[in-house]
């Protein structure tokens, strides 16, 4: 009788757990048609091959570096673990999380968000970066470092408590994708094909201080320590942009820091001409986010830089990797061809040369 009770009680708990998991899946935004960047963190866990390079940063990175293009041109496997407005502490914990399954030959971290400290907190960005992260201590620590005071820790572990109010807007897709969401990124890269109607770049305004916040420094130190401990080479970088909120003083501080740490810092703004970067045709907005054309130009240039640093990549010992990546290439090229039609239409519409 006692055993029967225990069995029934355990079965009840299992049913509750399944029900809660199902509710979480149904209510969490799916980020399939819109805001695809919300899928970047979760899709990483589907990666079955060993990765040569891991990239971290914000939206400027997931729009700028195409791992499939890198593979096609240099044979290296990579993943972009970047989210919209991803802060340094999020990059740190996503790196810590990634190193549980992968041992990359190189880690590259974008510094664009180095200028934001604890005051930079935005729920939507936190959600995109964290909702897809698997349960772990890294996730717990990352939530603690990222949350703003109005948020509740438990809602990150049980998203239904945050998104329950979506009951009004649930569609068939929410139930369909609750079971399985298709891949929407290309190893963390998000393809964009738009060109703005016009390009306006504003002058840089002088700032009161050019110091990076303490919290950002602290997590940059931790990133360096982690890579050091794991004996993984680290490169700090800045993707090519025309933004007016990046200053020479930032470059000076990061160059000095990199020298102290014995690592490299590269601002790819300095090489825009070499890579053939065009403000008018290579960005989806006013000089922050690259479209596919700009991204491929940058990726090829970046690949050249990486190969120059680490040497050639080869997966001859593991043919399975190439097999998997060939499939990725087919999907990428198919979607690229489709998207380029839209890009060319925009060029014609705006009377621009390509």
């Amino acid at each position, binding site marked *: 009788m006692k055993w029967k009770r225990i069995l*029934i009680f355990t079965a*009840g708990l299992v*049913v*509750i757990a399944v*029900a809660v998991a199902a*509710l979480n899946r149904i*209510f969490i935004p799916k980020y399939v048609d819109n805001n695809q960047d919300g899928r970047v963190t979760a899709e990483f866990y589907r990666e079955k091959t060993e990765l040569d390079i891991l990239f971290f940063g914000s939206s400027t990175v997931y729009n700028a570096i195409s791992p499939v293009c890198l593979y096609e041109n240099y044979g290296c496997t990579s993943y972009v673990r970047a989210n919209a407005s991803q802060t340094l502490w999020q990059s740190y914990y996503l790196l810590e999380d990634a190193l549980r399954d992968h041992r990359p030959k190189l880690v590259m971290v974008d510094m664009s968000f180095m200028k934001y400290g604890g005051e930079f907190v935005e*729920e939507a960005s936190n959600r995109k970066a964290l909702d897809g992260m698997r349960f772990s201590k890294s996730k717990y620590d990352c939530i603690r470092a990222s949350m703003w005071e*109005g*948020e*509740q*820790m*438990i*809602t990150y572990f049980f998203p*239904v*408590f*945050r998104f*329950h*109010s979506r*009951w*009004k807007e649930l569609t068939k897709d929410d139930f369909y994708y609750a079971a399985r969401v298709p891949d929407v990124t290309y190893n963390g890269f998000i393809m964009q094909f738009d060109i703005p109607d016009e390009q306006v770049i504003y002058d840089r305004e002088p700032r009161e201080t050019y110091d990076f916040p303490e919290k950002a420094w602290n997590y940059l130190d931790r990133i360096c320590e982690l890579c050091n401990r794991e004996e993984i080479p680290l490169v700090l970088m800045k993707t090519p942009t025309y933004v007016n909120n990046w200053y020479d003083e930032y470059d000076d501080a990061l160059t000095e820091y990199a020298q102290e740490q014995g690592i490299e810092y590269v601002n790819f703004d300095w090489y825009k001409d070499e890579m053939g970067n065009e403000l008018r045709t290579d960005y989806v907005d006013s000089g922050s986010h690259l479209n596919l054309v700009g991204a491929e130009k940058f990726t090829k240039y970046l690949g050249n830089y990486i190969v120059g640093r680490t040497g050639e990549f080869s997966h001859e010992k593991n043919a399975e990797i190439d097999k998997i990546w060939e499939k990725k290439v087919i999907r990428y090229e198919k979607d690229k061809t489709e998207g380029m039609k839209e890009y060319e239409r925009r060029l014609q519409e705006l009377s621009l040369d390509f």
Partner: protein
Amino acid sequence: MSFVSFGFVFFMIVCLAAYYAVPKKYRYLVLLVASYSFYILAMRRYVLYLIVTTATVYGAGLWIDRIAKQQKAYLKSNKQDLSKEEKKAYKSSMKKRQKTVLVLCLLLNFGVLAFLKYANFVIANVNLFRLRFFGRTDYFGFFDLVLPLGISFYTFQAAGYLIDLYFGKYEAERHFGKFALFVSFFPQIIQGPIGRFPELSETLFEGHDCEFRQLVYGFYQVMWGLFKKLLIADRVASYVGNTIASHRELGGAYILFAIFLYSMQIYGDFSGGIDITIGVSRMFGVRMAKNFDRPFFSKSVAEYWRRWHITLGTWFKDYIFYPLSIAKWTLNLGKWTRTHISETIGKKVPIYVSMFIVWFTTGLWHGAEWRYIVWGLLNFLILAVSTELEPYYDRGYALLHIRQDGKIRKYWQVIRTFTIMSFLRVFDISASVGDACSVIRGVFHNFSDFNSGKIAELGLPPEELRAALFACLAVLGVSLLQRKGSIRDRIMEQKLPVRWVCMAVLVITVIIFGSYGIGYDARDFIYLQF
């Protein structure tokens, strides 16, 4: 720490685990530590007020008890030596001593409550009086006062204990820790119910066995409380608040809708909160007094007040109304009226004077503002008028051929009572007495304008409105079923799968359709402010 927070859920899990982990005889200590932790987390240093009330009432209780025992022992040992008159004189002197202790302790505790709650109200009115009648603009400054959490509730509860002790209803609690728990028990300190010592102490101090049934039973009640709070009260709060605030620009139908919705809001909020309190207590095996008995089914205002906030009503009845109605001065006033005015009126004077004071105090208890006092006095007026008109009602119904025990009369009485109580509550939600009158006037103009677009604009989009109405219907349905006895009891008698399904439906409904989290304004319990 709000009852409706993940923090409280965590707090409860820790408390329950600790309560059932320690030996039975120390379980009251877990509750005491939990209660003080809860209070300190919410009020920090203001816990001192709670300690002062606890210590003074505990001390006074022991003192009164000692006098009673002294008297008993003295009379016993001198039974043969004392004459009847001497015994009477001795008893009277001892009662006087007890009374002195009682009055001093009550003065101290009600004095603190009155000062914290009403000092600034008095100053504001004195300033206004001086300005109006003497043109004085040298205003008295206000005190920077913080009202400690639940002070009205724990002061009333402690005072009730002391008064009953004075009347010799029971002996004083000698164990300070247990008495401190009686005053501070955390589930009830926010908004009651106001417990009586003999009933509450029966289950509060005893270490209970960990019974799965008790836990589930309590959990059901907590979830039902959350259902009322999150699906009704917090959902309609925006609409009600916005409509009343901008009533001058709105048609009467929107205002009337807001007035009725506010009745549902305050019921969901207060009775929901009480359900959480009772459910949480039940999980520790502690039985709390009933505070609501389906008040919206009342057929008269008097009945409504016997079914709404029952423990406050009985407190006022037992400790103010009854003592006042048999007090010397009210009886003398009745006598004087009988002699000088009329026999019939004279008989009623002690009752109506006591009622007037009770309702004035009830209004004042709800808040230090004239609108609450007016609300209390309007309740008194309606109760007095309806008592006087009772015979005429019967004649009116007979003329209309409406049967005394017929359904038509019953439905009419229920709807009438609900409408009256809803309109009285306007004084509760309005900013001032003038504003409340303006809201009521507003109901009667431009009544034809009523559309869902405007309702959405005022804070209740169609889906939210449907959810709120569904929840109200669910509460109505449950209330109808409750006429045949407790629904929880009936669910607990069902087979396991049925019990699990009922629980799952309730929990999932609250999680999904509740108004909580980002995107909804977190709202405190309304009665917290009283």
